[in-house]
């Protein structure tokens, strides 16, 4: 590895002291004078027509400043009442119809949260219930109730420019891939494996719920402070909705108490902006935990996989994926597309057909969730990889390694693979779990087993990150970036990259928090893209500053700038360290003054070759791949069905680990989150009503659910264009957990469960069914 001074070092987080003292600033702590609080009346029906709303008594209630309905917003001149990143299908407040239980109908701004909540009780809404569609497979039937009669285009993102709505159907997007001759391969197959896998809707549960604050300043500009992963998007979308230039809106984001995808795109921002405009006062809206469950969810899926085998080779795979996107598309079409094209897996299969459908139902909207849909497709394909391997009598690890794509191979889309440490991740995870060692003997009713799973994700492409680096005359530097620090460590990581490139000490670099008045555009802080995209942008910006700095020094010393280098805040002649100067001396040499700055700008904007709409083929469908492998050992109680994970090894390819400590945290953290999703998390609906929308009833992984042996494995296969070779790792640990655990379950007790979560009840049922088949009791 190259000799870096700060890249590759496990430096501490910048924000650690603030966090352990509780002093860290969140939007929830902000209380401008005259602040109003928002409460929102939500629909009790999963699907209904709004017949009448009477808000007059609420408007007259004590402490109430404003009451807003969807009709009020639609009547405001110049205002577009609909929004959404893929389709503009979601009204800020319901207009004419509600499409899921918990949809926002009437918003009140009042002197206190309690006054606002009390006023809601005075609002009368008359509904006429409509037929409801809840199951994703029911929703695609010809006679299904239609959730949206008309779908408006959005146009917010370049990668979704091709997304166009169908007519009179709940399928709002269909991704299609055709490679080779699938029918012929199935006709000639020795064996065919056919399975259906499901995963339910689930919740992100960031400990900090959504919260946004807005006010109109003295100059009439709209100021937003919001817990958002996408400040640039929020500004652009609000400008469009409000019909004002982008520079009339300022969006700032302090530290986030977690995001995991929940805080992307517009959430509460339109409501607080409109209420601030209406009242002329600052307005804050913070969701309760119950409201979180009604705001955005993880896509439930049904995945149908059919695989042909000839000899020991997989010759064809047919994938049908049905994504339950709920009542609003949210970013569903992007998930259906990006995850859709990886749903046959990172394997050598010559004939493939993929159909991936985004389907409306009357459930809360599903959106991005750590992994962007890829955990759902890997859950299916890497469960089936084990089924096929076992069916052929092959070792599951060897079978994967034999079929895994490697450097230079073409992915199913026709895009070459570069820097994808898939095989290394599989090998190292398998070694760590003791794959070759004999299985632990049974003990009473308990059986042990091991499981492995792997997969890849392709990073969202195209997307854009811009950054500005400002070098001050005293040698300190500011980095302007719209990447949101939500616990992943981006602030410190970007400082490491800037410090390395500039040759300045790490502690002299300050990263400015997102503020759309000063920090350049960034697509989103999500999708494991910030290290690569923003990292590259910051590095480029720093390189430009360094060039200016070196020119200043070279002019003064009368040498060639190419002979200079910088370290610890000093610029000197390579090989003759005594000949050089400090940054301050360089500024004086160039400007004759310290009252100035050197500024550089960087932009990272990877592009794609658009996919052929019929075949899904593209010479370049993504900027980089990141590989994940999980290896687990489980113990299953055959009497109760209870499954305990004893060992967990989360392997992921980081490219280059800019900060190894954060990479390990991301791998373990993502794996822990998805262990909960694998074992017990699910949103349970009955007749369109959510039954477990609180943390009393919806359990997430606690410290007791983490195995004592829980180990990250950071694989490093540098990417040729990554900043110092780095890629992203925020989602990697999440991708392969579910399949690894289900595969270990089969290894332990010989039953295959195709639905997550793998609850004791499900495992118990599967064991009972297996005993019946085997003639037992």
């Amino acid at each position, binding site marked *: 590895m190259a000799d870096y001074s700060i890249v590759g070092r496990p430096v*501490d*987080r910048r*924000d*650690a*002291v*603030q*966090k*352990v*003292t*509780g*002093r*860290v600033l*969140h939007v*929830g*702590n902000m209380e401008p004078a005259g602040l109003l609080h928002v409460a929102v009346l939500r629909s009790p029906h999963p699907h209904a027509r709004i017949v009448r709303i009477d808000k007059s008594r609420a408007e007259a209630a004590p402490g109430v400043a404003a009451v807003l309905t969807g009709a009020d917003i639609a009547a405001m001149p110049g205002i577009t009442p609909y929004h959404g990143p893929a389709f503009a299908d979601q009204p800020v407040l319901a207009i004419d119809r509600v499409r899921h239980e918990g949809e926002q109908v009437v918003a009140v701004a009042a002197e206190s949260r*309690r006054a606002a909540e009390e006023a809601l009780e005075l609002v009368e809404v008359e509904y006429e219930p409509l037929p409801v569609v809840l199951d994703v497979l029911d929703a695609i039937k010809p006679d299904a109730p239609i959730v949206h009669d008309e779908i408006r285009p959005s146009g917010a993102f370049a990668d979704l420019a091709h997304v166009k709505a169908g007519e009179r159907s709940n399928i709002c997007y269909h991704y299609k891939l055709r490679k080779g001759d699938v029918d012929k391969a199935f006709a000639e197959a020795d064996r065919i494996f056919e399975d259906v896998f499901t995963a339910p809707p689930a919740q*992100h*549960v*960031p*400990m*900090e*719920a959504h919260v946004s604050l807005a006010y109109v300043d003295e100059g009439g500009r709209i100021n937003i402070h919001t817990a958002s992963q996408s400040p640039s998007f929020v500004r652009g979308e609000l400008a469009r909705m409000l019909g004002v230039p982008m520079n009339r809106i300022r969006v700032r984001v302090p*530290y*986030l*108490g*977690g995001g*995991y995808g929940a805080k992307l795109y517009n959430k509460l921002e339109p409501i607080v902006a409109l209420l601030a405009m209406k009242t002329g006062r600052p307005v804050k809206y913070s969701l*309760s*935990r*119950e409201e979180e469950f009604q705001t955005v969810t993880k896509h439930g899926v049904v995945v149908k996989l059919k695989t042909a085998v000839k000899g020991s080779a997989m010759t064809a795979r047919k994938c049908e994926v049905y994504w339950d996107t709920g009542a609003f598309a949210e970013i569903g079409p992007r998930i259906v597309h990006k995850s859709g094209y990886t749903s046959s897996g990172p394997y050598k299969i010559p004939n493939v057909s993929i159909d991936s459908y985004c389907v409306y139902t009357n459930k809360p909207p599903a959106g991005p969730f750590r992994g962007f849909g890829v955990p759902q497709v890997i859950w299916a394909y890497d469960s089936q990889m084990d089924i096929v391997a076992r069916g052929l009598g092959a070792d599951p690890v060897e079978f994967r390694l034999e079929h895994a794509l490697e450097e230079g191979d073409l992915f199913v889309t026709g895009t070459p693979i570069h820097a994808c440490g898939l095989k290394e991740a599989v090998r190292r995870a398998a070694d760590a779990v003791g794959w070759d060692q004999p299985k632990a003997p049974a003990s009473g009713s308990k059986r042990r087993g091991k499981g492995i799973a792997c997969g890849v994700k392709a990073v969202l492409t195209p997307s854009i990150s811009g950054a500005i680096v400002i070098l001050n005359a005293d040698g300190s530097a500011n980095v302007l970036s719209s990447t949101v620090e*939500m*616990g*992943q*460590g981006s602030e410190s990581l970007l400082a490491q990259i800037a410090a390395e490139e500039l040759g300045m000490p790490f502690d002299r670099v300050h990263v400015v928090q997102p503020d759309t008045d000063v920090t350049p555009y960034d697509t989103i802080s999500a999708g494991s893209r910030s290290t690569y995209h923003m990292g590259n942008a910051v590095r480029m910006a720093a390189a430009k500053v360094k060039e200016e700095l070196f020119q200043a020094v070279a002019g003064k010393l009368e040498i060639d700038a190419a002979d200079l280098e910088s370290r610890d805040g000093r610029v000197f002649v390579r090989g003759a360290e005594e000949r050089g100067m400090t940054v301050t001396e360089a500024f004086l040499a160039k400007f004759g003054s310290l009252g100035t700055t050197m500024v550089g700008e960087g932009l990272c904007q990877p592009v794609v070759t658009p996919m052929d709409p019929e075949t899904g083929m593209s010479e370049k469908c993504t900027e980089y791949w990141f590989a994940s492998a999980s290896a687990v050992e489980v113990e299953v109680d055959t009497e109760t069905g209870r499954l305990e994970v004893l060992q967990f090894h989360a392997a992921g390819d980081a490219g280059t680990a800019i900060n190894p*400590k954060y990479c390990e*945290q991301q791998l*373990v*953290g*993502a*794996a*822990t*989150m998805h262990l909960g999703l694998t074992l017990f998390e699910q949103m349970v609906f009955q007749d369109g009503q959510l039954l477990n929308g*609180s*943390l*009393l009833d919806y359990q*997430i*992984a*606690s*410290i*007791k659910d*983490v195995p*004592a042996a*829980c180990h990250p494995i950071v694989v490093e296969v540098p990417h040729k264009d990554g900043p110092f070779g780095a890629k992203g790792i925020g989602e990697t640990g999440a991708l392969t957990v579910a399949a690894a655990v289900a595969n270990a379950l089969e290894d332990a007790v010989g039953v295959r469960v195709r639905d997550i979560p793998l609850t004791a009840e499900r495992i118990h049922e599967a064991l009972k069914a297996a005993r019946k088949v085997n003639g037992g009791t």
Partner: protein
Amino acid sequence: MERNISLTVNGRQRELEVNDADTLLEVLRDGLKLWSVREACGVGACGSCTVLLDGRPVSACFLLAARLDGRSVETVEGLAGDDALHPIQQAFLENDAAQCGYCTPGFIMAAKALLEEHGDPTDDQIRDYLSGNLCRCGGYPNIMRAVRAAAARTSDR
């Protein structure tokens, strides 16, 4: 209805007017601006609002302030001195036990109560004690390490 209570908060006695419906969390946050006390579930299930009530860990979101007349409350704001972190905070810092950091004050207060009860806790005791505090970043292994380190540090003293 409004009533007056006397509450010792981080060692300082406060005379407070509270509504019968006010939770301890509302009084600490909205009234006293102790922002480390954070609501995340509202039903006492996640531990983000853990504070010590007469030394015992409680969920501030789930207690009515009006019933706490004469009691004593401690939050993270009461831990650090002017120039030094509390040993538990220092241990959380050194072991990278805070990621997004939203749950961190609750974990630190729960850990403080744990270490006052068990000076040298076993791993199982740590898990039992902290199982009511949730961290969605999944930082549990580092939190375990931090609590062990804090135990070693406090028992050395």
